[in-house]
């Protein structure tokens, strides 16, 4: 009797202390401050609500894929939920690592996932990913540049021509360029030039069309406006923060981060406009459940919670300037600094000429390299506008299509 009592007591203690644990691995919210916000302000209430534990870890897309691949190979699935980038999603679906969420999501009637991202998250009519952390491009100006601003320029309705002229005036006045793009290969230059191409009605990322040629001509006209150390920038945040550069058009969350670091020093605005409108490459990450997880129900609850309009806005506001890709989330927007960043991004999303990374590329990194090479050769080295070069590189772009 005594033994039975002890066993029962032990079992009670074990059950009392063992809580279900959900493992979430994300490529989003990697900066430590963002991670801290997500863990303390978003995940903690979820844990308390369901009396569970969530292990939230961050790593790059490639590592997440490798980790889950090993788990699938060994049959020991320890990752329950992943957050991966749009360009990687086709690989996850092709390999069969993620669950089709269509039957579950269709029951959630309080939210509408922004249609613009369906091309990335829905495959053959099946929704495998729930969009989260969407982004577009925004303009960021240090107030120091205002002394060179031509009088007729309205920053909210800035055109690419005006920005180029302004950047050139800054360069001439200061004796060196103050415009930042990412000059280190395989970073975000393709998206920065993509924004211009789309503004000129181009077919991005192709190079053999009038829009692309016009965009590259504009970049050529800005050849002296780029900061001298542009080749060393893999991210526009550090040079903008240390005021080495004064102007950039970059990823909304990163622009938001710099803006938030000193709102009295910077001005943010939507991406500039061109003859075809306000161009921007848009991207998103997506939440998915790993096939074979032992905690499917809890993972589904987590997805449902993370994409609730109020929660998705809270998480996106607290982590820079990501766009909540749930239409109803906009109803919760206020007027503080974070809201301003999100509002600007939503403006680009709603009014913009947008394009996405289509899942038609063998290796997106190589496509990025083509843009890096043209920029290096035509803008930084030769300093000569060569439309023929664009035609030539189009051959390379074509060879990278699946």
């Amino acid at each position: 009797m005594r033994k039975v009592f002890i066993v029962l007591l032990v079992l009670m203690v074990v059950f009392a202390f063992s809580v279900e644990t959900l493992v979430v691995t994300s490529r989003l919210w990697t900066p430590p401050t963002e991670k801290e916000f997500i863990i303390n302000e978003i995940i903690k209430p979820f844990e308390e609500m369901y009396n569970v534990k969530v292990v939230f870890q961050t790593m790059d897309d490639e590592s997440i894929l490798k980790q889950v691949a090993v788990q699938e190979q060994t049959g020991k699935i320890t990752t329950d939920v992943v957050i991966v980038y749009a360009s990687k999603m086709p690989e996850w679906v092709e390999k069969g690592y993620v669950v089709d969420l269509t039957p579950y999501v269709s029951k959630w009637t309080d939210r509408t996932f922004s249609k613009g991202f369906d091309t990335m998250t829905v495959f053959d009519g099946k929704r495998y990913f729930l969009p989260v952390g969407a982004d577009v491009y925004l303009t960021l100006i240090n107030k120091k540049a205002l002394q060179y601003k031509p009088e007729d320029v309205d920053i909210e309705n800035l055109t690419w021509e005006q920005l180029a002229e302004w950047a050139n005036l800054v360069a001439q006045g200061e004796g060196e360029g103050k415009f930042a793009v990412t000059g280190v290969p395989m970073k975000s230059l393709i998206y920065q030039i993509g924004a211009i191409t789309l503004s000129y009605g181009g077919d991005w990322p192709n190079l053999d069309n009038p829009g692309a040629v016009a965009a590259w001509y504009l970049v050529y006209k800005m050849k002296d406006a780029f900061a001298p150390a542009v080749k060393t920038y893999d991210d526009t945040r550090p040079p903008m923060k240390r005021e080495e550069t004064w102007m950039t058009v970059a990823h909304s969350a990163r622009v938001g981060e710099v803006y938030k670091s000193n709102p009295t020093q910077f001005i943010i605005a939507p991406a500039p406009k061109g003859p075809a409108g306000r161009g921007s490459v848009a991207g998103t990450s997506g939440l998915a459940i790993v096939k074979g997880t032992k905690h499917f129900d809890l993972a589904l609850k987590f997805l449902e919670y993370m994409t609730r309009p109020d929660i998705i806005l809270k998480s996106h506001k607290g982590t820079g300037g990501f766009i909540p890709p749930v239409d109803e989330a906009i109803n919760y927007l206020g007027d503080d600094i974070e809201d301003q960043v999100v509002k600007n991004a939503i403006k680009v999303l709603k009014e913009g000429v947008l394009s996405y990374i289509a899942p038609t590329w063998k290796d997106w990194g190589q496509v990025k390299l083509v843009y890096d090479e043209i920029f290096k050769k035509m803008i930084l080295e030769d300093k000569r506008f060569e439309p023929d070069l664009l035609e030539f590189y189009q051959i390379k772009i074509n060879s990278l299509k699946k």
Partner: protein
Amino acid sequence: MKVAKIIRQTLFYIIVAGIVLVILTPIYFLVTISLMSDQEAYDWPTQMIPSFFNKFKLEIVDNEFLISVYSPAKKTYVTIKQSSNFEDLQKFVRNKTNSTIKKELFETQVKKLEKIIQENKDRIDLLRKERDKLKRQINRLTVETVRLKSQLEMAEKANMQEFIDMIKKQIEDNEQEKAELVKNLENVTAELDKIGAVHFSVAKNIFDNYINFFRVTSDALPALLRSVQVAVLTVIISLSIGGMAGYAFARYSFKGKNLLKLSVLFVRMFPGISIAMPMVIILINMGFYDKPIGLSLVYSVGQIGMTVWITASIFMGIPVELEEAAMIFGTTRRGAFFKVTLPLALPGLAASAMYAFIGSWSETAQAIVLTQFNPTFPVVVYQTLVGAKGLINLTAAGGVSLALPAVVFTMIIRKYILQMWGGVRV
């Protein structure tokens, strides 16, 4: 002859000083940045010494508080936040400058500010209007001058002398006018600073980045302990296996000894990351994946080769006659090893322990792949570095925290390092 000697000595000291500079500069930079606030770390040019106090300026603009911090690099106050809410302001200032403005201090300064504003209200309004007007005029002149300079370039290329002189004159006039306006602006700003703002200083928490690093990377402390565990296990495994092998290489002669000795180094020639993926599968099947023992086993593979070479040379430096003499006096072979050879080889073993410790302590590439929920400290620092592009001071704090235990360990056993390459004297 004497001159040649002086030149040789000078060159020698220049090289020594150069080496010291090359080693110390990055360390100094890292430590300094780790003690700087976000404001200081991105202030350009970055200061050589972190500050211990922050000087603030408080103004009231559009019925909101506008706070500025003094920038030693720019030698002026830089605005950082405008808000009507004290809590917002306090939080922002703390994150930006590592200084916490206490409510009592803030309220005192606000009272002071309100009093001087009350006394100078009309003058302040006038000066602000004047300042805005001057800024607009300077802006117009700056743009015009820059445009004229472009036109001048074109005129010079075309050799149009008539235009060149005209434009040059215009530029000169503009610059003169601008210089006057800038001077006026400086005067207006200085007067506004006196009658429309209050200044105060607040101590800076110099270790705030370290506190923040361990706060925002919630797994940093357990990861630090895990790293110690991994390093100690690596030292034990590599010393016990490598040490025994080293002794065998030193004391016994057998066929293919040299080839075998050379081959233990082969394993170090492969990049660790290339074997990391297959290792994951092996470790999962062994039940060692994501555990300190698994990582230390992988690290030991590389360290054993190094230990074999170091310990073999140490044991070779200890005369075999000493062991034989001990055995003549009645001890066994094992006794001779433990009582005579091992104490003499201890300095060299300590040095190879240092190599093993540092090698496993700072390794990141394999640890990223071989851990999932239990990362080591370098992985945590790496993840912070990847994510914290705009937070260089936080990353520096992580880097210094990572280096510190290895530095302490090296300092403890530094006296043995010189004897590492078999320099044992009997």
